[in-house]
């Protein structure tokens, strides 16, 4: 299949950082090294022929049993060129962190906190790395595949 403009550009600009690409069902996807995520995102937003000005979605997937275990998934959208791209960065459990992209898109702030809350992946350089949906005392990260489905954690006592 013919690689799209975005994937071609990425491959030219970052030959060492792109691990694999595909366009399954027309969704352009690039798996990148987690160390270069900030650089790649900045490039995608600023390059004249790409201009990915929307950070539509940021989430993570837990591939329990695989190494690296987590994948952080970014969905970007370019209003000017009407294109979408998916960027994925694999994060191992032993070093469960990735650079924050809040400096590129301010809207990533809450999304990164949500991923931290649900998966326990830390975002380096994030201005406020706290839980967002759950309370501070909550133990574990509920969207991890090894978190028991029916586990209950009642919040006891008033919050000080």
């Amino acid at each position, binding site marked *: 299949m013919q690689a799209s403009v975005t994937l071609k550009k990425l491959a030219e600009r970052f030959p060492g950082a792109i691990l694999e690409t595909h366009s399954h069902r027309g*969704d352009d996807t690039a798996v990148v090294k987690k160390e270069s995520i900030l650089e790649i995102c900045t490039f995608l937003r600023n390059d004249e022929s790409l201009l990915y000005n929307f950070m*539509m*979605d940021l*989430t993570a997937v837990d591939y329990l049993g695989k190494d690296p275990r987590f994948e952080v*998934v970014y*969905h970007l959208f370019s*209003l000017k060129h009407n294109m979408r791209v*998916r960027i994925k960065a694999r994060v191992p459990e032993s070093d469960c962190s990735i650079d924050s992209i809040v400096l590129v898109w*301010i*809207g990533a702030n809450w999304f990164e906190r949500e991923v931290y809350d649900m998966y326990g992946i830390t975002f380096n350089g994030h201005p406020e790395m706290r839980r967002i949906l759950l309370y501070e005392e909550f133990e574990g990260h509920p969207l991890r595949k090894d978190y028991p489905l029916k586990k209950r954690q009642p919040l006891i006592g008033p919050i000080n």
Partner: protein
Amino acid sequence: MCEYGTWQQVIPYTDRLNYVSPLINNVGYALAVEKLIGVQAPERCQYIRVIASELSRIADHLTNVAAGGLELGAFTAFLYFVEARELVWDLIEMLCGARVTANYVRIGGLKNDLPDGFQEKTKQVFARCRELWKDVDKLLTKNRIFIDRVKDVGNMPADEAIAYGFTGPCLRACGVPYDVRKSQPYLVYDRFDFEVPIGETGDNFDKYLVRMEEILQSMRIVEQAFQQLPSGPVNIDMPQFRWQSKDDIGSRIDSLIFHFKTVIEGIKPPPGEIYQAVEGGNGEVGFYLVSDGTGKPYKCRVRPPCFPLTAAMSRMMKGRLIADIVPTFDMINMIGGECDR
């Protein structure tokens, strides 16, 4: 939670995302799974999905404007629009038997075809809705008290709105004409003639005006869809992926077998990952699905439109009065079910 049920069992959960416009979420999820499988629903089904989505959007905007008015003291406007919403919900009830938790769309099709007399009923409802719309327009759009509370409150420059990830009416109020229905038409939206209203400053008054106009545009879409509505089946002819009709299960052995297979094991989309966006009441509702080839979704992620909007509350409220929180929060239309999922 979605990852422990079958693909079909996710649909009722999507109702609860934005519970004022559940049908759009249903449609978005079904489209996402269909994209994952690589099939397209029949044409008649697509038209009915458009009708259902637009009815939902009307109900969503009516509720938002009504509640927004109510919280600023415009109780009459609230009553008028709630009457209109009740009428739209009557239509949705006629369509699928439920008013709020619709659970109407199925993967590869629909629960049922349009009921008899639906088109005539819609015509009557729209006639009444337009009357009510005019009344509310008179009550609010030039109302000095309302304007004082919403104008120049909650402004957002377009570039910042984009950086925050705004979509839907709130983004369009900032002057950015982005609508998923226009820019990446799904279903049969490219066959309809409708306008995408935009505002200028992104303040609450613009958001209100955009929503008011979109109500009228959605009615236009529904009317055009009825005119173009083709005949034919509403479910795809691929029994391993679709929901079997109850009549067939009772009379045909193959349907019964597929019923057991799809209910117990679930339908099995090929391994892969996709992202599908639809234009929801509040903005882009995106579904990111990962399949590992089994009957259950490996990952089912919803991109909530009001999460980034809520994130920008502090930005919009900087240097404002406490009283300004009320209209601003109303106009971003934060829906809890969608915000925290």
